[in-house]
């Protein structure tokens, strides 16, 4: 059971299947960092992204790329409308975090009900075939989907990191996330930064749902469960650290994958909540993986 080949296979498959979770987590953590909002409406964005792509492929008969473009366009439109006509109004009223929580959750609920009305509750994958060709590399089964998932995730995460570090808009985002009022004094528009953060989150969510939907059948309420993972990973990673959240997402995914060696599969879901509870009790401001790495001398800083 603990043979190196088995462990390596679990590592590879775990990394590949963590890819969409990482994208959802980065999207969630980015909005939390910049907008200071626990955006539970992300589940609604995820559902819209998937079903728009699904409609493109299966109902309009479009090729993959235009369908993904359609999904992205609808997700962007919904998200930016939410920010412009929802969050901005609530912020102007200085609404409590509970009101934001209700609003974001209700938006996700509304999206789930509307999509249930249109598409029903039958689980549906994006394409008819969810199996992809597999090859054996050094004793490890590597599928085309694994390579696509890891490639897309690494590519988007790198692009986001470069954007935040080197573009002027990216630096504005970082400034607003540090101190929105001070950033505005320097002429940076916080409203614009929020819109950009939501737009970036839409791209990540759309890519994540494409990867998830090509591998698994989806129902309108499924994104809510996926988002809970993103919430927990964000908390574990330490609020305000997008990289920390991404590392937490990979770690949690791998732990869940490896747990099949010792924990019955039906209890794998519990691992997430145990970690959440332990983290909240012992690391109330998050585990901050980057700080832990520095503490143990594994990273300069």
């Amino acid at each position, binding site marked *: 059971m603990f043979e190196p080949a088995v462990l390596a296979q679990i590592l590879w498959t775990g990394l590949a299947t963590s890819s969409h979770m990482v994208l959802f987590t980065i999207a969630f953590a980015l909005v939390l960092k910049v907008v200071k909002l626990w955006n539970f409406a992300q589940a609604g964005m995820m559902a819209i992204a998937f079903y728009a792509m699904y409609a493109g492929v299966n109902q309009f008969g479009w090729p993959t790329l235009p369908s993904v473009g359609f999904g992205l366009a609808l997700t962007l439109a919904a998200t930016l409308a939410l920010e412009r006509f929802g969050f901005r109004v609530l912020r102007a009223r200085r609404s409590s975090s509970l009101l934001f929580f*209700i609003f974001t959750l209700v938006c996700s609920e509304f999206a789930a*009900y509307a999509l249930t009305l249109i598409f029903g509750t039958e689980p549906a994958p994006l394409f008819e075939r969810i199996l992809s060709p597999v090859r054996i590399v050094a004793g490890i089964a590597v599928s085309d989907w694994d390579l696509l998932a890891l490639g897309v995730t690494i590519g988007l995460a790198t692009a986001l990191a470069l954007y935040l570090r080197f573009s002027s808009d990216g630096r504005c985002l970082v400034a607003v996330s540090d101190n929105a009022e001070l950033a505005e004094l320097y002429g940076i528009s916080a409203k614009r930064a929020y819109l950009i953060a939501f737009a970036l989150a839409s791209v990540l969510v759309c890519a994540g749902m494409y990867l998830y939907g090509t591998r698994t059948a989806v129902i309108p309420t499924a994104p809510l469960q996926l988002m809970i993972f993103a919430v927990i990973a964000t908390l574990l990673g330490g609020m305000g650290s997008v990289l920390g959240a991404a590392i937490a997402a990979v770690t949690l995914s791998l732990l869940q994958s490896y747990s099949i060696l010792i924990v019955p599969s039906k209890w794998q879901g519990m691992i997430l*909540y145990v970690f959440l509870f332990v983290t909240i009790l012992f690391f109330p401001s998050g585990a901050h993986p980057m700080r832990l790495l520095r503490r143990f001398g594994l990273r300069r800083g």
Partner: protein
Amino acid sequence: MDYVFSILILVGIYIVLAASFNLIIGRAGLASIAHPIFFALGAYTAALLAIHFGLNPVLATLAGAVVAAVFSLMISLPSLRISGDYLMITSIGFQLGLLQVIKNIEITGSQGGLSNIPTPIAGPERGAVFSIIALAAAAGTVLLIRWIVRGPYGRAINAMRDDELAFIALGRDATRIKIAIFAVGCGLAGVAGGIYAFYFQYLTPEQYEILASGTMLTMVVVGGMGSTWGPVVGALMLVALPQAITFLQLPPSYMAPVQGMIFTLLVILFLFLKPQGLVSPEPPAPLAHRRAGRV
């Protein structure tokens, strides 16, 4: 007529849930949203005791309330260290983690749900009797909470919510108050669970997911957080209004999503048009009428 009784019973149950939730979140400012899991604990405990030990329904419901109150320690103790968003997320973790347990153990019926719950009342008057029980429980809950918050204990709760540091600095015991509020609020949710279990005779874990938290929280906020009658109005409106379309006789596959959309649109409408809720919190009693008391 059965349909009307079902709605009345649901209204009664949701008034108990919303009013007890309001005590925790509105009155004491403790941002836990795990209330549905205490509803579940009450329902499952009462149902299992009735199924396996044939316990009297009243005693089984009370046992459900006690179990819910005891489990509330798992939220009230962390609330001594954390607050705000962290408490909210912890409570979600607690709720979903415990649901995961309910979904995976056989005695609770696992994912398929728990059925064959015995009914204490049979015959044509069943709906009417349960309606009276549920509405009486609702009235009892509202009056009990009103009594708590209008006395010296209520003023202590308000003081703790408004400035916990100053409250502790004055020598008051915030720990005891938090634990007591969670125990009372969650215990009442357990009572609602018992009534639900014995009337509907079927429980499924999906009923207690995070969307149920959203529903209960919405009733409190739309009704008026921190007010005595707000949760009553919120529960009444949000249970009754989506039922209006039942008379359109849509196919079942359309009915649930359309009702859900009406519910969510109503909530969004209220959040923007009446963000303070339909009922404003009562102003504090004049100082001259306050009795001296220490908690």
